[in-house]
């Protein structure tokens, strides 16, 4: 899921204060904490109050979209409303904001949130935690299931570094666990320190360089297809 944090109301209002009719769109996709119809309504009311305090009138409608990052879903859900509004405020993650701006290119969609990271919900520790950085070159098979990209502040492939003290990381004041000590403990537990000892060469950062696209297959065949030439 994409972990988000709502922006300060001042910042959101500043983006839309020149408009008199706004559409506030929640997202029912993977965005966490949930930003659905009720959150959209509350945000709209707060913006209305803010406008009133400045002697302005703000008309709004709050809706929610199953997934703003899916072009077909977003287009069919939002299209009926856009003619009547000057701007859209979206409560989705950045993916939804960009997609909405792409689909509806005659109206600006503004972000009400900061997208923080792709995260997991760890109820035992009461956190949303970044366990994967979507780096495109998964090492979890050789690290005992602990990600050294997301878990290590220095993204080390051959850790730990000298900044670890009794299994805690120098970044964050020795409160977060050192991913590489954790990797060591996991591999030792399964008698697989051979994986720890092995040198991992420099990574291929082309897999982690924006913008990234993956072609969605439209069809499959067992016939030989001509290969695309790389320039």
């Amino acid at each position, binding site marked *: 899921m994409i972990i988000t944090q709502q922006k300060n109301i001042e910042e959101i209002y500043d983006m839309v204060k020149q408009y008199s009719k706004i559409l506030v769109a929640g997202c029912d996709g993977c965005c966490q904490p949930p930003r659905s119809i009720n959150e959209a309504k509350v945000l709209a009311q707060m913006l209305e109050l803010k406008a009133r305090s400045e002697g302005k009138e703000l008309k709004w409608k709050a809706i929610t979209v199953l997934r703003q990052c899916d072009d077909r879903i977003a287009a069919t859900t939002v299209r009926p409303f856009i003619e009547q509004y000057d701007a859209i405020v979206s409560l989705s993650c950045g993916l939804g904001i960009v997609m909405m701006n792409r689909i509806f290119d005659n109206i600006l969609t503004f972000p009400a949130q900061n997208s923080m990271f792709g995260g997991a919900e760890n109820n035992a520790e009461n956190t949303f935690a970044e366990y994967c950085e979507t780096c495109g070159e998964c090492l979890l098979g050789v690290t005992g299931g602990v990600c050294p990209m997301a878990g290590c502040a220095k993204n080390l492939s051959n850790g730990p570094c000298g900044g670890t003290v009794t299994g805690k990381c120098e970044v964050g004041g020795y409160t977060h666990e050192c991913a590489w000590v954790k990797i060591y403990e996991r591999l030792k537990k399964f008698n697989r320190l051979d994986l*720890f000892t092995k040198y991992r060469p420099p990574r291929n950062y082309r897999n982690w360089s924006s913008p990234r696209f993956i072609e969605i297959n439209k069809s499959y065949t067992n016939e030989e297809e001509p290969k695309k030439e790389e320039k």
Partner: protein
Amino acid sequence: MAKRPAYSNLVKTMRESKFLFTGELEPKKMVDLSSILHSAEEMKKTGKITAANVTDGPQGDAYTCSMVPCHLVQEKVGLETIWQMTVRDRNRIALFGDILGGSILGLRNLLALTGDHSALGDNKNARPVYDLDSTQLIDLVSKMVDDGTDLEGNEIEGGKIEMNVGCAANPNSNPREPEILKVGRKVEVGADFIQTQTSFDIDDAKEFLKELEKFNVPVLLGLFPIKNYGIAWYFNENIPGVSVPKDLLAALKTAKKQYKEDKKKRNEAIDKINIDFFEPFIKEIQKTTKAAGIHCMAVHYERLFEPLLKNF
């Protein structure tokens, strides 16, 4: 791997099994390097310091680069340097380019480090790089030295560079095993020597040195003579995993109180405390371990070198 030639005087001396000393210079946010050159001259004068490390943005702070001071110390003072290079601020392209540049300037020792995270430094919002880690930096230097190429195998015009590369190791590490395994990795990809972090515990240090023996690479044990009580206090409070022994801390505190007004006497007392602590420490290391020497991190405390090292 087979030992590569000793390109630096440091590695030559290590391989002659002479017990040696290295010092440390720390360029800060400065354009005038006269204090660095002065420290280097004082080290050179003792005749006991084989080479001096030049730090690369310690604690993640934005400081004068290490390459230029290395060059000037070698050129103007005639003291060999150990060029510290972290992977925090440069990607593999910049690291490669700088190493080529340093090699042209005659730098023959490189200490490959990860580097304290930028979030700890004085430009906390900086984007840390870490394209390579310190082991991969050793791999890069090895390729430049042994094969005359970059990491992709692209050849360097004019062939191989001449440089020896070292790595760090932490005697205060806990747990210890991953640290030892990591050092093993670094030796495997080509580290010629090891310099350790500071140690105040003789038993710990000896045990750690014993564990490093299996790699058959010269090791310089890091020691940190303490210039004043404030530094000792800061060390104890802010550097987790390392603690200044209570007796040493108390002695420094007493010296501070006793000679509050008399700087000269205070300095003499502090120097004596350091000599009383570190001279037997060094003798014990020299006598009972296979360490190649001591890396003495007496930054801005060059006056101690002469009295501390006179019996070595």
